[in-house]
């Protein structure tokens, strides 16, 4: 095999833009991230090293990629209109994830709440026009966040299928032409001072399971009553800041609600597929980097005075790792394609149980392979495995949380099982 690009993808699904995006981002990765990423772990609190790298990727003085989803006439690239939006998202997730999955998630979560108002067929022109300048005319990286998790019952919010928002404690009350929001959110990516715009799932009636009472409201970070706590210290993912987020009588215009009763619940369901495909992309990218590091190590280090890779038993073991990367990459792009089929006659809408369950299953599968293979790879490196200099242990620490987020492994399993076996009570 000549390079990581030889890992299989479903060639027929790849957009014409893919090559361009990939090479631009990879050039950025090799220049701005690879040389510095070992130091990022110590930068988790300040982001003194991390911020400039983001500027070069996201802002106008760099690639300006943070504007990608906005319509062209509002200064964006119009990717929200593309039939390949998921496939390209997978490519971006892969390329950035290869260097640092924490940067990848921080960067791509900026798109996450915006998908609900910028991706066909749900474009909200007024909100798009309102937020376009913020992202399209900036020389600094601008981050958005989706504030889902609440102190009680961690994954309940992602568990819309089952709970229909019943447990949401963050309330939105309409007062004249303004929403008044009160609540406490935990752990959103791009908080702790990073986020400048929040997508906030709220309920307009506490304890209700009526989709009409679910509201997704956009809240700029600088509005009065919004407080961001300091960043949590975590096992990894230093480039992704998470903290507490409080809303105290926060007031935003009524039209900051994504779409309105019913529709909000639907578009909120639709963000899940984006998160799942992105997660797979992050992991495949990280595993492609794993392959690069491992390839070098097994070619230069020895057992029995022969290169590790020339020992049949070790070759079998590392072959399984590479083979899993091949498998996971095929699955990630097939998953992306399931998303991009949303408007095809033979496809299914993003909110359909079919799409959600199948992507939950694929994400769960890819997570397990990644957790397994990074662990194995550290053992292949042996005494060098835990050493930051070899770049695998950081991925190992970082990617574990990809398995835990968005409701975690067990929620994936339940949603998949419910679909495959038509379970009624899970």
């Amino acid at each position, binding site marked *: 095999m000549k390079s990581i690009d030889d890992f299989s993808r479903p060639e027929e699904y790849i957009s014409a833009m893919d090559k361009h995006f990939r090479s631009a981002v990879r050039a950025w990765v090799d220049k701005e991230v690879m040389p510095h990423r070992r130091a990022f772990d110590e930068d988790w609190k300040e982001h003194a090293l991390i911020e400039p790298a983001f500027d070069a990727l996201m802002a106008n003085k760099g690639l300006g990629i943070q504007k990608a989803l906005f319509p062209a006439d509002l200064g964006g690239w119009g990717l929200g209109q593309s039939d390949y939006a998921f496939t390209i998202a997978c490519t971006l997730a892969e390329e950035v994830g290869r260097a640092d999955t924490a940067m990848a998630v921080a960067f791509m979560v900026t798109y996450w709440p915006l998908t609900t108002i910028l991706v066909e067929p749900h474009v909200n022109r007024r909100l798009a026009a309102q937020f376009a300048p913020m992202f399209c005319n900036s020389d600094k990286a601008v981050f958005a966040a989706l504030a889902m998790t609440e102190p009680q019952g961690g994954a309940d919010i992602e568990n819309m299928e089952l709970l229909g928002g019943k447990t949401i404690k963050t309330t939105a009350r309409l007062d004249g032409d303004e929403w008044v929001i009160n609540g406490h959110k935990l752990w959103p990516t791009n908080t702790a001072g990073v986020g400048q715009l929040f997508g906030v799932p709220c309920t307009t009636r506490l304890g209700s399971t009526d989709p009409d009472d679910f509201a997704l409201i956009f809240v700029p970070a600088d509005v009065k009553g919004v407080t961001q706590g300091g960043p*949590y210290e*975590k096992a990894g993912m230093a480039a992704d800041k998470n903290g507490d987020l409080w809303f105290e009588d926060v007031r935003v215009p009524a039209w900051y609600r994504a779409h309105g009763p019913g529709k909000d619940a639907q578009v909120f369901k639709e963000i899940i597929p984006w998160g799942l495909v992105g997660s797979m992309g992050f992991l495949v990218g990280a595993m492609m980097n794993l392959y690069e590091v491992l390839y070098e190590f097994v070619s*230069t280090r*020895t057992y029995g005075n022969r290169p590790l890779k020339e020992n049949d*038993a*070790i070759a079998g073991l590392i072959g399984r790792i590479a083979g899993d990367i091949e498998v996971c990459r095929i699955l990630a792009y097939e998953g992306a394609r399931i998303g991009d089929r949303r408007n095809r006659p033979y496809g299914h809408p993003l909110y359909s149980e079919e799409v959600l369950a199948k992507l939950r299953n694929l994400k769960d599968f890819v997570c397990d392979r990644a957790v397994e293979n990074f662990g194995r790879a550290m053992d292949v490196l042996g005494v060098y495995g835990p050493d930051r200099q070899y770049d695998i242990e950081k991925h*190992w620490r970082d990617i574990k949380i990809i398995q835990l987020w968005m409701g975690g492994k067990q929620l994936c399993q339940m949603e998949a099982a419910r679909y495959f076996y038509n379970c009624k009570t899970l």
Partner: protein
Amino acid sequence: MHKSLDGLFLSTREQIDEEEQRIVNTVRQWADREILAKRLAYLENYEHEFAEKRRMLLMDIGLQRLALSEKDGGFGWNSNARAPGLAAVLMEIGRADAAIAYLSALQFITILACGAENTTSAGALISGFYNTDQPVNPALILPGPGTLDEQTPLFFGRSINVRLVHKGEDDILIGKNIRPTGCGAMANHFFVVCADSAGKPMVTIVSGDVKGLQRGNTLKETGLNACKNADVTFNHVKLPLEAILEGSASVEKIYIWLNLLLGATSVGAAMNFFEIVYDWANTRTIKGGSIMKENPICASVLADVAEEIAIARFLTDDLARLIAMLASRHSPELQHVYTMSQIVGYRIQQGTLRAVNRGMELMGSAGYAREWHAEKHWRDIKTIQSNLCGVGAEVPVKMDTARFFFDCKEIQGEQS
């Protein structure tokens, strides 16, 4: 957690005598009072707290002298028969902080490897290192990864990267940029597996302050963060004669003890992780109300956590029992115990790490946040596991296993 771990994780403990049990209890009290009860404070100021609590364990309680012979002022736990007791003690330490247990395990190994050889000279040398009121930091240099540019003598396929050469009257150690197991950056002495001119593996003891010993930069590592490690170079280090252990089996013995004592360390860490998960599963609610432990799929994950730890503890006891049997009337041959120790040692690390990985699945971001301590056990056990592998993941152990059970001759390269 309100219940006793002993009541949950049965060990077939008829093998532990009262004296041993007393010390186990003392260490558990130290763990509960000094570390687990004030865990957040312990972590917030980790390096300082680590040094303090470790000193208390090694000096005040005196565990640094546990494996020293009585004539050297120790507790005399320096025989194979003490394997069950030593494992039990390390489980208790590992429950508090795997990093402290890790260093104690390495201490015991260096002492036992000498003692077991009855080479009074080496024994005297090593007990000299421990004749101090300061905590002793040991490091091992084990066979491991080789490099393309150099053919080395092998210990069952693993490269021995340090050479012992004779220059005139002197025994001299040579080796470049070698990765120790243990705290190379702060080690008072190194326990070095090297090869003589004939390629024969042997073990030497090197003081941390000898001329020609150079240390590289302190490494950033996944876990065991208080054990500062660094590569070392032996630039023509001159050795006193008593620094060389006789007995060809000494390397096997190091691995046997390493597998038992680091296994016990990880089991201890996993048991504390169990306590954390127990409290979590008994207090957190899911699906908008039901207690996590009452949800069957969460319960099955919890079961995996308990099962892996219970099995790992069984296997630890089995290995301890095998070691204790050495030189008894049922004594198995050393190669057999060596092979089983490699198998069991690998299984214990694999099982305890799986327990933690599974448990984290239920803790979500809390499993990932520093404050919950869970992720520390995860990083510590993983660090122990990778170090124990040496190189090539489990393959060197698989080759040892195949050689013993199937009489393979060629799978580990040219043996010396």
